[in-house]
């Protein structure tokens, strides 16, 4: 790309922009290694987002001191905030890198942007973390509609507009991890492989650790999504069993950060409260209605 025309920038920018800005990134070579900060210097351009900054860093191949630096590893795919890949902690707050605009970030801190990996998941490298626990949580709550088969049996159940309008926002959850990163009740589960442990043994141990740890707002909300579906509801008791089991709905401390940081504005706290209500009924039924 050719250098941007400065006169155009001045059309929209409220404040004069710097010639260049620093990006400080918390890097880690591999799990178990100690993290280190590395600073990069990026020439300013209008309309940059964090993804394009990371692309520039990869192409530059050197840090702010001019020393060779391997490209920062990060996750991304759609760059439109629908795939959920590029979650990271930017200037102290968890969000999607694709929709984090440099111009906005520089308004908060004029010369520097700080990038860190999410703190609630094991770091694989640099900004890449392992969010396997979130997908395992979806399995725990049986986040699916249990249809008999994929043959032609006509349409699904009819659904009131109001019901669809309740379900649709919940169904926009992209398992990005913002909610659990900001949740003070969600704590990191990181296991290291023991000597002599096979893949499947390690996997089983990991699953067990996941299965007693907090489900998190995303999975709770998915359980409610499927309890709301006429067919999905037929499996509601199994979902309630997971929601009232170890690491279930009871771990929620109502800090409500989840709903504040959700990039899709999903009413997670409503889902949590509804899960609480369903759990109340389910528990009473289970105790008295045997």
């Amino acid at each position: 790309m050719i250098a941007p025309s400065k006169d155009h920038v001045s059309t929209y920018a409220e404040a004069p922009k710097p010639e260049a800005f620093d990006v400080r990134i918390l890097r880690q070579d591999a799990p178990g290694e100690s993290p280190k900060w590395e600073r990069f210097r990026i020439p300013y351009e209008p309309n940059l987002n964090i993804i394009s900054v990371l692309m520039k860093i990869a192409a530059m191949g050197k840090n702010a001191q001019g020393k060779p630096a391997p490209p920062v590893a990060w996750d991304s795919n759609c760059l439109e905030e629908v795939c959920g890949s590029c979650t990271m902690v930017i200037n102290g707050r968890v969000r999607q890198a694709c929709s984090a605009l440099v111009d906005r970030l520089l308004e908060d801190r004029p010369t520097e942007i700080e990038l860190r990996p999410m703190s609630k998941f094991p770091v694989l490298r640099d900004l890449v973390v392992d969010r396997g626990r979130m997908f395992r949580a979806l399995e725990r709550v049986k986040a699916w509609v249990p249809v008999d088969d994929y043959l032609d049996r006509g349409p699904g159940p009819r659904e009131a507009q109001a019901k669809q309008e309740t379900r649709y926002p919940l169904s926009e959850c992209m398992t990005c991890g913002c909610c659990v990163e900001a949740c003070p009740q969600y704590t990191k589960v990181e296991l290291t492989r023991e000597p002599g442990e096979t893949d499947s043994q390690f996997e089983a141990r990991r699953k067990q650790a996941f299965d007693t740890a907090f489900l998190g707002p995303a999975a709770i909300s998915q359980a409610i999504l499927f309890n709301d579906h006429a067919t999905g509801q037929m499996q509601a008791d199994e979902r309630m069993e997971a929601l009232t089991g170890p690491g279930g709905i009871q771990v929620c401390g109502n800090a409500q950060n989840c709903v504040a940081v959700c990039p899709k504005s999903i009413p997670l706290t409503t889902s949590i409260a509804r899960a609480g209500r369903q759990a109340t009924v389910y528990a009473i039924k289970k105790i008295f209605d045997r």
Partner: protein
Amino acid sequence: MADSSATPALPFLVRHEFLIRRLHSLSGLIPVGAFMCVHLLVNSSVLNSPETFQNNVYGIHALGKLLPIVEWVFIFIPLLFHMAVGIMIAAGGMPNTQAYPYGANIRYTLQRATGIIAAVFIMYHVFHMHGWFHFDGWLSMAESVGGHKFRPYNASSTAGAALQNPVILVLYAIGIIASVFHLANGLWTMGITWGVWTRPAAQKNALVVCSAFGVLLGIVGLSALAGMYNVGKGEAYQAAIEAENRMYEARVEAGSVQPNEHKRIEERGTRSEE
């Protein structure tokens, strides 16, 4: 799933996490929160007159020998359970108000902070006024280190006298504010936990109601504290003792109260300030 059969049984606290958390939530309202409301309201009756308060205390002590059982079953045990589980919950969280300074998150952190403050305060408060246990040896030991100051048949005067130390008075004010916040905010989170208010609008309205309740109860609590303090000081103190003694003697005479010197100020009928 195939691997679940091979996994070892989970610890008791993990297996019953849901039930324990729900009992914790429930115990915060009933009986602990409800008791606190009654307690503060009864205490604030001292604002009317020491006699009013003394009457209320006689009402409570009408249970006689059953009183310690009722205290332990309906107050102390639930309270200790609520504290123990609460401390575990607080230890399991990682407050992050610096990164996410949102209202509900700040209240989340405050709920844990006030819970701990309230726990420390209440442990001390029961020791300071009540003494926890009714064994004579224990009580005299407690008394020798500044505990067991309250005498039910000299209710206002002993309570008031015990509050004359400014450090203790401030401690009580902090303790009352922390406990009231913890109850009011706990009521709000409880509504979410049990699914009473689910939508944001309902939660917002509930927050207004719970806040109003907290402010009112806080006023009641602090007024009671001020009332007690005032009764424990100077002429009011002497007047209170006299009134209490009159009431005691009249009741003993009428046979509605068994004489019990343990529940009265010993010997001189006056206590030096600490």
